[in-house]
């Protein structure tokens, strides 16, 4: 489990780097009323865009949750073998819940 949670942290990190220009483009569009309306119809009509949004948000959630675990371990919390396993499980379970909630929000 710790190996899976570690590689997912890397994968979501790379995904998020690719997502930054997409998010900036959305921000730019969203700040004028015509672009905002365009985005609104994009996210209500296109399954592909809904999925892209969900994938980005879920990657954010995973990367943040795993990152907080990293910070906790820097503080000496959950550093034992047992604690490391428990931490990795917690990250995966919390992220699965976040992914489901974000799915409900997007769809």
């Amino acid at each position, binding site marked *: 489990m710790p190996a899976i949670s570690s590689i997912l942290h890397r994968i979501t*990190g790379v995904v998020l*780097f690719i997502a930054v220009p997409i998010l900036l483009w959305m921000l730019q569009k969203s*700040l004028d009323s015509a672009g905002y309306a365009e985005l609104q119809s994009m996210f209500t009509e296109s399954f592909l865009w809904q999925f892209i949004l969900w994938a980005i948000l879920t990657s*954010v959630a995973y990367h*943040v949750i795993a990152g907080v675990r990293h910070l906790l371990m820097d503080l000496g919390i959950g550093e034992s073998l047992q604690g490391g396993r428990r931490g990795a499980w917690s990250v995966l379970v919390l992220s699965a819940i976040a992914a489901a909630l974000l799915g409900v929000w997007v769809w």
Partner: protein
Amino acid sequence: MVTTVTSLGRSGLHDWVLQRLSAVIMLAYVVYLGYFFATTPEITFTAWQGLFASTFMKVFSFLTLLSVVMHAWIGLWIVSTDYMPKVSIRIAFQAIVIVICLSLLVWGIQILWSL
């Protein structure tokens, strides 16, 4: 050391500190945006534009974007040293990442302050 010439902090310890500082700033921004979405009864164009109209939000957003590009520079540098053993490919990859990071930063400033 020549091997760290493309790293952001020029030392592992410096990168380590920057990676955590930027992480905390981004965490605060995610929580703040989450709070906005959770407490705004209806997200309209007016509410959204109003959020980004304040100087506080512009500075906070810029600080977060700065954290994003620093974090990505450091993170992708580490990842590239693990998966790209060939020096020429690794340096080229790192250079491209740096150019993209700087471009995203400038673009972000333009978006935030053109409002």
